[in-house]
């Protein structure tokens, strides 16, 4: 009985603390961990959103880069952090794929985090060196099937967006091509520009300017509709590939156990940030759009994460490549 009272009292006082917290939250700087090096696309997305959230929350939202091990180090750091809303994680699709790519993680992907909301879904583009023969997606698929021993697909390393998308492409056309991994997008793109490799599938963040500049050729975008920044590039469905749907979605997470009203406050703030004109403009230049307010919610992110873990598991297992 005594114990029960104690528990109840603790629970009450916790609730009281929590509501006090929410009224004053945030009263100091918030740190958003980006599990990748500074300068990359995820870092850029985070910094743009963090700046807009700072304005809304009235406290600095600081970006901390904790790179390493395909984003799992940074995610693990946040999973272990105090669940007070002052340490957050901005991670992309890798959150879902690393659950399968890494067979031993320091955290349980589905149970270690509270969800704040989706941030953006960056579309992918299927691009190739500019002198590759096929002129459209259909003939590219035929070409790839006919030359599967010589067609090379570049990617930026295991777990990278380009790696996932490359796997998805090969699985969509049911053909395994020659995979050429690189350490990062930069070197992979350099070799694509130089015609050293044939195909790559990467985020618009990395490819839009190159496509516009005519230095590489685009065969398809992976979105249901054509992109405003690349109006001439057909969708994969237009080209006859219906099951080739990949986007690099980004989500904002907090450690499990963060008070509900704090999560709520952060989620609201994220929605405000995503409606910020600067964020919209900058995202547009990168070839992406902020998630709509309805998706910048805990429920939407939770559903996305669960769905994506389930979707990628068989693809990764079929490729048989793990990162640990």
């Amino acid at each position, binding site marked *: 009985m005594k114990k029960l009272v104690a528990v109840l009292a603790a629970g009450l006082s916790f609730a009281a603390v929590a509501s006090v917290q929410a009224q004053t939250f945030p009263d100091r700087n918030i740190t958003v961990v980006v599990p990748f090096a500074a*300068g990359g696309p995820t870092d850029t997305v985070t910094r743009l959103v963090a700046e807009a959230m700072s304005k809304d929350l009235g406290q600095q939202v600081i970006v901390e880069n904790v790179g390493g091990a395909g984003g799992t*180090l940074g995610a693990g750091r946040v999973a272990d952090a105090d669940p007070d809303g002052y340490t957050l994680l901005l991670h992309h699709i890798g959150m879902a794929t690393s659950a399968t790519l890494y067979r031993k993680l320091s955290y349980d992907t589905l149970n270690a985090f509270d969800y704040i909301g989706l941030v953006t879904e960056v579309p992918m583009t299927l691009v190739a060196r500019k002198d590759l023969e096929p002129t459209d997606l259909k003939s590219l698929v035929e070409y790839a099937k006919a030359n599967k021993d010589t067609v090379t697909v570049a990617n930026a390393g295991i777990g990278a967006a380009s790696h996932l998308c490359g796997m998805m492409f090969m699985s969509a056309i049911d053909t395994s091509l020659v995979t050429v991994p690189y350490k990062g997008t*930069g070197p992979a793109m*350099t070799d694509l520009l130089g015609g050293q490799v044939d195909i790559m599938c990467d985020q618009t*963040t990395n490819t839009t*300017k190159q496509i*516009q500049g005519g230095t590489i050729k685009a065969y398809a975008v992976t979105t249901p509709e054509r992109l405003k920044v690349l109006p001439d590039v057909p969708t994969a469905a237009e080209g006859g590939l219906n099951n080739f749907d990949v986007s690099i979605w980004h989500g904002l997470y907090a450690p499990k156990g963060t008070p509900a009203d704090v999560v709520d406050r952060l989620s609201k703030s994220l929605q405000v940030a995503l409606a910020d004109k600067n964020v919209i403009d900058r995202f547009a*230049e*990168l070839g992406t759009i902020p998630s709509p307010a309805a998706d910048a919610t805990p429920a939407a992110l939770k559903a996305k994460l669960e769905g994506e873990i389930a979707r990628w598991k068989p693809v990764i297992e079929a490729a048989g*490549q793990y990162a640990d």
Partner: protein
Amino acid sequence: MELFSNLALGLATAASPWNLLFCLIGVLLGTLVGVLPGIGATATIAMLLPITFQLEPVSSLIMLAGIYYGAQYGGSTTAILINMPGESSSAVTALDGYQMARRGKAGSALAIAALGSFFAGTVSTFLVALFAPPLTSIALQFGAAEYFSLMVVGLVSSIALAHGSIVKALGMVVLGLLLGLVGTDIYSGTPRFTFGIREYSDGLNFVAVAVGVFGIAEILRNLETEKTRELLMAKVGGLFPSREDLRAMIAPMLRGTAIGSALGILPGGGAILAAFASYTVEKRVSKTPDEFGRGAVAGVAGPESANNAGAQTSFIPMLTLGIPANPVMALMIGAMIIQGIVPGPNVATEQPALFWGIIASMWIGNLMLVILNLPLIGLWVKLLTVPYYVLFPIIMAFCSIGVYSVNGNAYDLYAVAFFGLIGYVLAKLRCEPAPLLLGFVLGPLLEENLRRAMIISRGDPSVFVTRPISAILLLLALAVLVVVFLPSVRKKRDEVFVEED
């Protein structure tokens, strides 16, 4: 003449009072943070990056570029004064620069480094302005086979880094290559030599290894003799290089600039080799190769020029292709995107003021550095009169912060301690750290490109000789081997029977 109108536009942009101010602030901040021991260019820029976000795009990039040069210069300063290189290029500067400092010529070494950098910066800025597009198309000819062959040339040249036993130097290179392989194999995703520590799955941190084997090992060596030796830098000679020193630096500076400019263009890691390659060349052409490793002027002037020229021309792939050649350039690209400029092949035509403004500011930044640093030399040299037992706890504190700030990874700090120990033990066994560091940066590049070339060629090793650039590079490696190795083996053989160095 289009070039002149472009340069004029660039100068007009960069020389606006505000941009000049931001350039100055950038150079100053970069120098001040970069000069803190153990904090290299990447860490400095990552730390200072957010400061630039509030500015206009052009100003912010000009300031950032200034930070970059400043940080690089600061890195050379610590390499010379306390043998603490913050990145691979200044590791070479440490070899002879630190020895000059120990002989009381710290001021000369710093001035030589500053002048060499300025000269190289000026020349390579013009190269960038004149030839950026054609140079880019050459750089794109480099595929995996070419990079592999280039790295072979680098490895062969590394022999010159040694001034003791060649076999031991080779051993250190191989050890460095092995250490460079620690981390996840990018082809299979298998972690290698990480002893199950996931924090090392992206490899060992360069700054941790460099600070360990150079800086900490040096501190320990100094502590050894603490009781017997009065003051480390008892005499601090003239602040400025003598006339002979200046004369001796001209040729190395020219050669270093040429080597650095050429290698810096290659986005796949050419700039890494610049300083090492220059050192090799200088040691070979020198009439007094024995001076190297004991404070040779050419050993500072050449690599410093090469390093700065390479840093400058490594902007070419970024500006013309929108592709980062190194982590620093990746940071620059991130900064550009946040400013609303997505770098790509069209930046020069879409944003001429920005493009040429940055190029012009490179030169202005270099000029400011030289103006700023020549008077500061006196101050830096004074630092050496601080008693050593006061200096090294400060060094330890800063290098802890510097290493930790890059990735927020405590394991990088454990690596500092480990490599400090290894470096010290190896130094006691008369093994030199420079070849190890070269091996460390080359290891992953060598293996990656070898395996990539084999994958792309479907397992046909003849690509290395059938691709013309690769074949030429391999011939060059062979030539270096013949010229460098044979006579020294003969000499060595004589020496071995007398006394080992």
